[in-house]
């Protein structure tokens, strides 16, 4: 009798454990493992964001140097591997990391949502009538699921804008990033959008670059005080570098007037040829 009663009122699990996949795929089945994947892909994406920002600083050296940098990326591993192969491998890696980061974030959020259901006075999402008083959770950590989608939407816009040239139309010159960047960011709404999106990115990094240490279990009381500082300075560095592009364009410090290979006078191939010549003359 006693047992039947305790069985009847036993709290039922919200989810059943499933059959385990073979190692290492089974890591992705559990939330702790999935957080680990999120942190690991986060590190990869942080690396990309940093390299992307530093690489783009070439824009301050003028159109020719920027063109050279773009060509250098396409020629990675040249002489051994076909042109653009390494670049495409890197891009593929980025896409996989981004997809995993996104998928784990969405599924883990769903898991937390299910675990917080019926935890409110009206049976919905977890909520306290007395108001939740956040003590430790920073604004950044609580808005991860908003800054994330903003970054994802920005990424799509950014690719369509500067890689595929959807909105620049005839003004888009494939292979001349300096010109494309200038034409895009000289439009005020676009510049504002870039500023907003990069602020979201910095917010996201501010929590993520700290949180990843915990998720990966990198914790040593000797160095723990450095983790938040690292996250803040990383986010600050990315913010500073990335905001400089729209701001400097608006301030006319990134300017097309002085350039030797004017886009308006030449067709696309001639522009690229002119830029290459300009480099060789140096």
């Amino acid at each position, binding site marked *: 009798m006693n047992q039947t009663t305790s069985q009847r*009122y*036993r*709290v039922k*699990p*919200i*989810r*059943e*454990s499933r059959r385990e996949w073979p*190692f*290492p795929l*089974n*890591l992705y089945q*559990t*939330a*702790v*493992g*999935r*957080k*680990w994947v999120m942190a690991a892909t986060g590190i990869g994406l942080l690396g990309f964001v940093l390299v992307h920002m530093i690489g783009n600083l070439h824009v301050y050296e003028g159109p020719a140097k920027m063109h050279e940098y773009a060509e250098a990326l396409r020629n990675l591993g040249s002489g051994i591997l076909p042109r653009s192969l390494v670049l495409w491998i890197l891009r593929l890696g980025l896409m996989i990391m981004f997809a995993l980061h996104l998928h784990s974030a969405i599924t*883990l*959020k769903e*898991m*937390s*949502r*299910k*675990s*917080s*259901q*019926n*935890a*409110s*006075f009206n049976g919905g999402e*977890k*909520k*306290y*009538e*007395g*108001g*939740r*008083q*956040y*003590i*430790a*959770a*920073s604004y950044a*950590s*609580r808005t*991860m699921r908003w800054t994330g989608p903003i970054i994802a939407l920005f990424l799509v816009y950014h690719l369509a804008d500067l890689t595929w040239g959807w909105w620049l139309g005839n003004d888009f010159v494939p292979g001349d990033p300096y010109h494309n960047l200038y034409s895009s960011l000289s439009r005020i709404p676009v510049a504002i959008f870039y500023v907003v999106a990069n602020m979201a990115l910095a917010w996201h990094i501010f*929590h993520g670059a*700290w*949180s990843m*240490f*915990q*998720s*990966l*279990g*990198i*914790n040593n*009381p000797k160095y*723990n005080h450095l983790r938040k500082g690292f996250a803040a300075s990383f986010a600050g560095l990315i913010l500073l570098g990335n905001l400089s592009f729209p701001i400097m364009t608006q301030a006319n410090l990134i300017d097309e007037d002085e350039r030797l290979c004017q886009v308006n006078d030449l067709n696309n191939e001639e522009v690229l040829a002119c830029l290459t010549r300009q480099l060789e003359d140096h």
Partner: protein
Amino acid sequence: MSEVITVNLKIWRQESPSKEGYFEEHAQKVTTEASFLEMIDLLNEDLNNKGLEPVAIESDCREGICGTCGVMINGQAHGPRKATTTCQLHMREFSDGDKIVIEPFRAGSFPVIRDLVVDRSPFDRIIESGGYISVNTGSASDANLTPVPKEAADQAFDAAACIGCGACVAACPNSAAQLFTSAKIAHMGSLPQGQPERWKRTESMVGTMEEFFGSCTNHGECHEACPKEISLDFIAFMNRDYMKAKVKNRALSGQR
């Protein structure tokens, strides 16, 4: 020193798990020397005298070590005072005329049994799945037979301070039980006596935890809510051990 104050209580009432709950308001006169639970006792006495149903609230030791009491007071687990359980919270933390909202700990896996009492048995499920060590029976072994490094003993002791009250889950926006589970795993995983089952324990306890609770996003709310100030470091310890456990068990595949 002591003064008598009147607090306006807004208390969660719920007859049974299946019934709808609602808030009830009471004004309660109480001396500032009373503890929070004594204040509820006074209220219940008054309710009893009026022939009304008293508020159901769990308590046991009333000295902050059993983990039985625990309610959300104005949206904070165990109330506004840091590192204090509800029973150790005193009315001197409040002033005359304060409005106090008292709610049960909430999470999907903490169903309300009655009023402020919640069913925290999912914690028992987690403990059952691995919160033990194996000891050979027979004649008692010599005292201090197993040397324990001082640091390991300290770490295990810090983790063992967890009283399993559930404040971490209640305070967590994700309803994750990482702090509780990690404290138990680190408690036994840091000591030599806990080594034989270390990896199996980590795997199964985390597995059970994930059947009931949400996923940690490193907000840190649990640590702030914890009456025993269990450190977030233990969550990192658990994450690290979990990854090692998955890899190590694979290395033992030859023994299957």
